[in-house]
């Protein structure tokens, strides 16, 4: 299990606890992974917003 798979499992568990639907869980996981990758590259505000709203 790599870091990405571990994170996915955490999001799944978090989503389950908070009553998210599968779609919501996937959406949150995808945006979160993209944002974390962007964060490593110090992404701009615009890039962050685009990722959140495009999902």
């Amino acid at each position, binding site marked *: 299990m790599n870091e990405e798979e571990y994170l996915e499992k*955490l999001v799944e568990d978090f989503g389950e606890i908070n009553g998210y639907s599968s779609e919501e869980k996937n959406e949150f996981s995808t945006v979160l992974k993209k944002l974390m990758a962007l*964060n490593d590259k110090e992404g701009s505000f615009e890039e962050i917003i685009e990722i959140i709203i495009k999902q």
Partner: protein
Amino acid sequence: MIKFIDYKLTKQPDTISEETFIPNNNLNKFINSGEGGNSRILVIKASNSSGKSFLLNSIAYAFKALELPDDELSPTLRRSLNYLIDKEHQKINFEIDIVDPDGFKINSKFNYLDENEIRITDKEGVSGEIDSNEFSNRYKLLYDIPENPLDRIYKLLKSIKEFNGDILGSLNPLDIKIRDILKSIKDERDEVIIKKIQDRIDSNLELKKNREDKLNKVKEKLKDLENYNNLIRLKKSIDSKSRKEIEFSNIEKELRSLKPSSRLKTSTDNKKKISDLKKEIRNLNISGLLNYCKEEIVENKYHEKFTFCFSKTDINLFNYLFDNSESIVNDLLVYDIEEISKFLKGIESFKNISLDKVFKDIKSEYNEVDYRFIKDLKNAFFKYQENSVGDQIIVELFDKNPGLIIEQLDVYENKLSVVDDLNKLQKDLNNTLSRLMGKIKNGLALAKKMSKEITKNKNGNNNYDKKLERANNIKESINRDKFEIDKLRNTLENNGVKLSTLNDVSGRENLRENLYFKNSYCKGVEKEQIEEYKKEIKKSKLFLVDLDKALLDDNVKFKVEDSKKSSKYALNHREIQIFSNKLSFFTRYMVQRNILISDNGELNSDDSLEYKSYMKIIGEYVASLMGNKIIYQDSIVEIAYIDYSSKTPYFVTPEDKKIAFSDFSGGQGSSNYLKAKLNINEERKFIVLIDEIANMDNKSLDMVIERLKELDENNKLLLAILVEPAKEPNTFNIRAY
């Protein structure tokens, strides 16, 4: 793979025990002949004291093993390394060259002069020294000796703690950034806020219009009431003026038929005294009190009953006393004792006979005796109830409970309360008339003084002088009336009454009549209504001032908000806000779970249901570190996860079979532990040095070798040397995989 290795070890240097060691021939031969090919996995099996542990220690020291944290280097190995570099005990010169799978050449050497450097030479032959940080960023040194391997499997959780730390390290700044984004969007144009302000302005404008309309209506009603009052005052003043003009004209005629008296020159001092006394008489406000009494009688709600009860004599007396309020003042100003005495007697008679009779008549109609009885009875009931224990006597006497009796008494009391009103009115009128008599008597004393001052300067015809004085007084009074008339006309004109109406008697009368009907809704309580309207107007004006302030504020706010530039992201504010909330919750979720693992990898057990799912996730993670396979009872067993929820953790197979940690042999445990440590997801290349693998059986060792090969195939291995002891003496064998 190792390209070159050389060392010189001098034990107990400069002593008789001094001994020197160099690499084993088999090792030199293995490296120089290229026997191992490109293999990076070597297993050395050598007899005791053949230098195999020295070799591992030296390589480990060369690659900065002493800089590893405590949890990555066992105390046994740290002790061995410190012993290795103890110069009093031994001197070492060591050098090794390894070729990186990506084509770099790594050279590391150290000596007893404390020189220790690592150099990297790239494919173009450019060489440079790297420090220990740079080295540890590229390579992961795993130097291990299997000790209590099962305990250490438990501690593999430390890598999860690090994982969590990495994730939280990304989440926290991201959380802050997104909040900043939301804040900056908030500072941009917000149509919702603009609409809200606009709606508030519209609603306040409507409210303002309604309040202004209402205020104007109240003002109009107040104007009608004031105009009516002023028209009555105007009529009185005009009538008074006309009456006085006739009187003045008659006196003038009489004066013409009389002979004027001879005069002494009036001194300035004397003139001033006379003028002051006249002023004092006028300041007694006798005519004001007379007008007040007249209004109280004529305008009260019982006026009709008054008229009915008054005799003709009473009515004549009333007209004599109150119709010309200036008359008695004029009598005082000319010191006409006869007229003044007559007037005083008239007042007394009106007060004590006429009014007293009228009030008695009216009150008898309302049965004052009943009223007193009801009031007294009610008080007696209350007092009795306050002091008595029960109501038995009342019930027996009246055959009703006291509550019901009091209710009926209230009804009677309300019906008869008009008697109270009449008593108040009577008291007020009696007091005013008494004050009036007092003031007239004061005025009489002042008039006497004034008369003396006047007669000081005059001789002869006293009658002529008196008439002249009266004429002068009437003229002054006419002038005051004129002044009052002008004032009232101005006020009426300012209140919207046309000049043509004011100039015409019938116009004034018609208007007064119209206003009388218009104001009939507050008949008898006009004064109170005027005060009420004035209060209402004041209140409304204050409200409108506050409303104007609010409108002004909102207009400024609107301008500020409206001037803001629109952001293309403003519409997505909600969407971003929702994600931001989720992210904050997720960060909190991570923090709470991360606390379950201590910094040194211990699990703080929490068997609450909320954390059960997370326990499974970390169990799955550690199982994956082991490639989801373990050696158990000579077989390879697939595992799904590790169950950390009980005191003795279990490996759990996909079929849900459980294998307790405590059921493992040391060798199997070592193999399982090493596999987990050789994490395929590690981004750096491994340098693996493992001493004393003797307690592993072949299967367990094979599983470790398999994992090393897997790393090698994934370009994650620089070098692996595993060492085991040989029972045969003088043995030093090297196997390459």
